[in-house]
């Protein structure tokens, strides 16, 4: 009993421990991960207490060079965008820029997952270079989640938590909404415009599209 009281009396404020952990982690931490910093016998904080401490931390950072952000992987502390131009000068290299081809491929995987390379090529009307897929896989923004059961068993790509984390998103729901498509009235009402099911939709399109982009 003595050690319990002792530990409790010397424990720094919860907010400080969370701050230290989030700054040391080098990446996002979940509420569970933060709760895991406290042993059973030392009166671990409740989830409410953790959330309250995080909210207090966020408020503390309002006028600072860092901020608390919530992304798919949990909570993380990051350098504020307003300070980024100066912080960027720490490194010789410029921030990486990504080609339109890579971004379009990534967007298709994010919005239409799971999707095969062939389906991406059908929509983009151009071959997807192996380098792009390789880069996306290496950055762990996309991964192979299966294979479509058609000849050749092409890999099905989906986005990852790392992708969400990189772009500061909590979930795919936070992706910018896709642009609306105007209904081409002149085509008549019988036109099914957007195939509702993404998985089968792309295949259906491939079926009725006269342009083969293979090869």
């Amino acid at each position: 009993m003595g050690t319990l009281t002792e530990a409790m009396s010397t424990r720094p404020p919860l907010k400080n421990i969370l701050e230290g952990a989030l700054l040391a982690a080098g990446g996002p931490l979940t509420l569970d991960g933060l709760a895991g910093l406290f042993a059973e016998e030392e009166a671990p904080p409740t989830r409410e207490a953790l959330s309250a401490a995080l909210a207090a931390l966020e408020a503390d950072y309002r006028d600072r060079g860092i901020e608390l952000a919530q992304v798919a992987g949990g909570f993380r502390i990051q350098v504020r965008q307003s300070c980024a131009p100066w912080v960027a000068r720490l490194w010789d290299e410029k921030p990486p820029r990504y080609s339109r081809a890579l971004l379009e491929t990534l967007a298709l995987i994010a919005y239409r997952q799971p999707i095969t390379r062939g389906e991406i090529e059908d929509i983009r009307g151009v071959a997807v270079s192996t380098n792009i897929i390789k880069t996306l896989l290496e950055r762990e923004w996309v991964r192979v989640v299966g294979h479509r059961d058609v000849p050749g068993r092409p890999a099905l790509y989906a986005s990852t938590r790392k992708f969400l984390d990189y772009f500061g998103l909590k979930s795919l729901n936070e992706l910018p909404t896709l642009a609306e498509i105007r209904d081409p009235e002149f085509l008549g009402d019988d036109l099914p415009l957007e195939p509702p099911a993404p998985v089968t939709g792309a295949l259906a399109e491939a079926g009725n599209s006269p342009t083969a982009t293979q090869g």
Partner: protein
Amino acid sequence: MSDRALPASAAATGQTLSMAADTAAILPAQGLATAGATAAAPFAPAGPPQQREMPFAIVQGQPLLTLPQDLYIPPDALEIFLDTFEGPMDLLLYLIKRQNLDILDIPIAQITDQYMEYVELMKDLRLELAAEYLVMAALLAEIKSRMLLPRPAEAEEEEDPRADLVRRLQDYERFKRAAQDLDALPRLERDHYLVQALVPPGHRRLIPPEVDLREVLLALRDLLARADLFTSHKVEKESLSLRERMAIVLAKLQGMGFVPFVHLFEPHEGRAGLVVSFLAVLELIKSATIELVQAEPFAPIHVRLRTGA
């Protein structure tokens, strides 16, 4: 479509290729760069040498086909022009947007002609890439011919020959925009940076694994089966409490020097407890772990751990 050679000298000297057609200032399709004002920036650093109205190619007697004026083509990077377009869909979209045409009502003949002009140029520049554009060219030609065919009046429900192409263009445009939106999201390594603070060393812990008593007992059972060394037929329940008592006695003597013999006994335990303690002491004496010392007859007996010779 005759063969039209690219004026290599113009490209080699790094001149700005301009278009002599109606559209004097052609911006790349929306989204080639984030804003019109900066569109030329990646391609036209530090004022490239200007030479006006250099016919780029002659199409059917007219100097129609040139590159957008604001596209500076470095001598060794002709593919920049091609890379400006992410494929035939992108080029088509560009042609449509550039002329403010309604994507839902594309003048297919006009667009097809313009498209073919670009494709001819690309064929000259890089054949293997043009292949993808040729597929689209074939599609456009097919649609064009179907549009020319008289449509039977009763075939109301027959689909507009352009319908599929329009759908595909719209679908592509959505993802083209989605890619721009994605690029605009605040992201790591550009708008935000991860942080990392050092932790003072010396606090790493090893979490010991959980152990179930059953695991210990099963290990013991296997051991018993392996080496049948526990053959003594003592009452085993007794044996265990005796052994526990031996350990307790030893613990009491630890670091104490001489301890009065009577201190090893707890009267409140009753007769059984006293007997176990006595047996434990005897057992420890037998195993040369403790020794009894009595200064003279009838003096108090003391016990201590044997310290060796």
